[in-house]
């Protein structure tokens, strides 16, 4: 095992705890209150870039050396070359330090880890993407992938419902604007309460979902958001005819190793880091509600 | 009727009348010479309650968890001082408590039993207490020789706060300074003291049993668990263990009642009271204060006198 070249694409021969070095390329404020930023990381070494193959829905352990590691879903899409993006809310020790990082800083990366959104299952079907607030990161990855992977025609209608408390808290504004210009994706942005200058939808995500009423026949839905949003959206989906096996979500539990060893992210006998983070509602039904 | 049975009946009465919803006492454990805490909600279960020299835990440590609830508790003399400490710091409300205060002759220390017999602790399989004797297999030891070290110089056998009492008053041991171990340590050179401290802590696992067994360690978030600022790494590097123990014990300055629960809880047998008792001795010497004596008193570090000890200042 060498000290210099490490990637996790062949985990059996490599040290899965050893991060690769990334260089922070760009930091973007995503929301008005500046608590959420996107970090675009570029590969320090060519071979790492070649090895690092991921699918929307996967996550990485991001290190700020000297502070620690934390898991974040990948917000960029594999179709976006040259960087890996993470959108991070300032909350704990590592995220606070990350928010203070400047372009050029070295950041550690382990991954990609975990499973991904069920792209195979999605092919040939309509896709409904429902997101709330900060939990839109891997959904962005998914949407960009659906649009840009060169196989747009292999997916049916794409409907995106994305809500936040107010316009300033909607992330990825440029992407949203660009998607709205396209004819091959329907984007419904919503805010909880109307404000002057806002011409799009107003209302909570569950209500908007009911209004938009995506067709459940031959569709797969992905829902990510605060637990309360998911709780109230699920009955709406059921009403619209979505079965539990048609609805997917992504779990977040506290993690350390990300590789199924350290024993804290499990929900029942399933490890969020290994068996997840993406689960169908049908799978979650079989598990205790420990998340 | 035995005194214990009277207490059981009293507890059952409290539970029946709704004076308390829960009684925290001791029941026989599965490990020899060590009783286990028990939580009784049903008056029919009071016969589980026991009292003898195996009841080593300080049950007052459970009280902050039941803040606001009506709870009964069994306390030894030293434990009762912890209850006073908790009252003093507003962690419990007297009206909510029903206290069985025990006149305690001291609790048995299995480690000393093992040491006397020259066997490892875990090899003591078949042992029981009969009167003033501890019977281990074929051998008999005098209970007073295998009491917890702190119990041998105890000056608080009698409960200081109670609603009913159990047992006969115990006469304080005439012999012995209760801080003799502190004086011994003080007599060593600085380097010898450090070696003593470091060697004790070498065994520390950082399991936090000492903190969690302590009735006065009730912080919602202990400094070792804080992330902002993060003071502590969960590693067992010697300095990390020393740092933890220095700060935890110092946080008990003027608050530690000297019950020894931390020391008995330590799975590694670290003599934590050797350190804590220095603080108790100094608080007594400098500020004439003993923790857990008076629920109305001001704890020594929350007050001052203009003529306080000042010689140490340049």
């Amino acid at each position: 095992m060498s000290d210099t070249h490490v990637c996790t694409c062949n985990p059996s021969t490599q040290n899965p705890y050893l991060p690769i070095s990334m260089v922070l390329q760009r930091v973007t404020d995503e929301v008005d209150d500046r608590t959420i930023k996107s970090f675009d990381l570029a590969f320090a070494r060519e071979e790492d870039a070649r090895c690092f193959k991921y699918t929307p829905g996967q996550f990485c352990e991001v290190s700020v050396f000297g502070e620690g590691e934390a898991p974040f879903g990948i917000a960029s899409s594999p179709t976006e070359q040259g960087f890996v993006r993470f959108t991070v809310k300032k909350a704990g020790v590592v995220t606070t330090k990350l928010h203070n990082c400047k372009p050029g800083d070295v950041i550690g990366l382990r991954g990609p880890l975990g499973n991904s959104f069920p792209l195979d299952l999605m092919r040939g079907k309509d896709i409904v993407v429902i997101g709330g607030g900060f939990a839109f990161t891997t959904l962005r990855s998914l949407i960009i992938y659906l649009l840009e992977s060169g196989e747009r025609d292999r997916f049916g209608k794409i409907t995106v419902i994305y809500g936040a408390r107010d316009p300033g808290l909607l992330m990825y504004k440029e992407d949203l604007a660009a998607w709205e210009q396209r004819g091959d994706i329907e984007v419904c942005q919503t805010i909880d309460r109307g404000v002057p200058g806002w011409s799009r939808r107003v209302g909570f995500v569950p209500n908007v979902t009911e209004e938009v009423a995506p067709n459940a026949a031959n569709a797969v839905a992905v829902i990510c958001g605060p637990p309360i949003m998911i709780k109230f959206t699920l009955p709406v989906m059921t009403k619209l005819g979505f079965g539990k096996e048609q609805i997917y979500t992504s779990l977040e539990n506290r993690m350390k190793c990300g590789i199924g060893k350290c024993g804290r992210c499990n929900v029942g006998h399933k490890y969020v880091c290994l068996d997840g983070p993406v689960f169908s509602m049908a799978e979650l039904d079989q598990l205790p509600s420990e998340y | 009727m035995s005194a214990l049975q009277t207490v059981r009946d009293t507890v059952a009465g409290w539970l029946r009348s709704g004076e308390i919803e829960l009684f925290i006492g001791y029941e026989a454990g599965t490990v020899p010479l060590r009783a286990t805490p028990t939580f009784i909600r049903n008056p029919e279960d009071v016969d589980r309650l026991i009292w003898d020299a195996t009841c080593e835990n300080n049950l007052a440590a459970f009280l902050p968890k039941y803040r606001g609830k009506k709870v009964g508790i069994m306390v030894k003399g030293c434990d009762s001082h912890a209850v006073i400490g908790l009252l003093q710091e507003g962690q419990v409300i007297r009206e909510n408590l029903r206290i069985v205060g025990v006149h305690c002759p001291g609790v048995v220390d299995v480690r000393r039993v093992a040491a006397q017999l020259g066997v490892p602790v875990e090899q003591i399989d078949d042992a029981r207490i009969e009167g003033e004797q501890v019977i281990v297999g074929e051998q008999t030891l005098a209970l007073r020789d295998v009491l917890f070290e702190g119990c041998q110089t105890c000056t608080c056998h009698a409960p200081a706060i109670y609603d009913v009492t159990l047992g006969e008053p115990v006469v304080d041991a005439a012999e012995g300074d209760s801080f003799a171990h502190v004086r011994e340590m003080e007599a060593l050179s600085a380097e010898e003291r450090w070696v003593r401290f470091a060697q004790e802590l070498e065994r520390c696992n950082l399991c936090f049993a000492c903190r969690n067994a302590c009735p006065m360690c009730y912080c919602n978030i202990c400094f070792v668990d804080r992330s902002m600022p993060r003071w502590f790494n969960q590693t067992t590097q010697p300095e990390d263990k020393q740092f933890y123990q220095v700060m935890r014990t110092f946080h008990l300055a003027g608050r530690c009642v000297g019950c020894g629960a931390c020391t008995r809880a330590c799975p590694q047998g670290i003599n934590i009271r050797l350190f804590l008792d220095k603080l108790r001795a100094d608080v007594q010497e400098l500020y004439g204060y003993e923790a857990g004596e008076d629920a109305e008193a001001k704890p020594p570090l929350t007050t001052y006198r203009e003529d306080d000890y000042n010689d140490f200042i340049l």
Partner: protein
Amino acid sequence: MLSKKALTSTLYDLMDLYRVIAPCQRDGELRFDRVSSPREIVLDYGNTAKSPKGVFFPQNEAMIKFGRQVDQFNQIKQVPLDRTPTVLLGVRPCDARSFLLLDAVFAQGRYLDPYYQARRQNTLIVTMACASPRQTCFCHAFGSGPYDREGSDIFLRDAGDAYLVEGVSQKGRDLIYQGYLGRASQAYLDKAVEIEAQANARLADIEPVAGIEKLLPGLFDSPIWQEISEKCIACGTCTYACPTCHCFNIEDRVLANSGERVRAWDSCMYQFFTQHASGHNPRPDQAARWRQRTMHKFEYLPRNVGLFGCVGCGRCVQSCPVRLDIRGVLRRVRAAAEAAATAGANVEE
């Protein structure tokens, strides 16, 4: 056969070739540690307070070191793996079996743990049969026993003034062939059998654990967890004493000009073990943590890797500051499952 008199010289030979780790008296406790002289070794003991899992999975170990350049830690290096040929001498059969569970976690599956593997692959396990099981022992509840060879490379049995030496694995047999052992006479064989019978006679009656993994799934929302955990003071003693508990934390430890990423034992008994940065905690109380501890050992691990996360060494029973007895927990689980089954049957009627 190896006479006890010849043990010292054999150990000296062994120490020329291997790092020998055995129970030694250190800082006032019996602990598995590197042996510098055969005289330090204590083979006649009940069990160590801490299990030997630390030999392969130390309580804390630096995995990565980082150096500083300008004002940032950015020089990253893996800590070299420890491949020192090692003999782990004098573990008890319960602990030898615990390594099988640790192997399943660290050395099998999608990701392998190189730090664990390096040590494990280069270590030979010499187990000492357990001649005097304690009252906290319940290895036999798992179908094992004080003379179980599973997980050992070499197995030693007490035969009075000699040990009977038995190669269990190929690795173990290879080492024995390198050595010079006398053939045991019938008298020694008889003595060993006698000691074994005495050991087995000391075992208390206990219900087998097998089957409990089928009862647990139905008890997730049972009130027993609240009852069981009420006396728990949430220290991590049981998990640190346990030979199979393997949950860990990864933290960065920073010195003046360097730093390291340390893996340190952690415990599911701690409040902050699962708490999110947001403050949300999926296991918000001690009842949920006890459920996790029990289910992890007796349901999830059997389901995921086919082994119980418990070998019945009794250390947690012995070291618990409030004597919360895992055997009692298992009895409680059975009783609750039976009660639920009876209630269910009544409903069906």
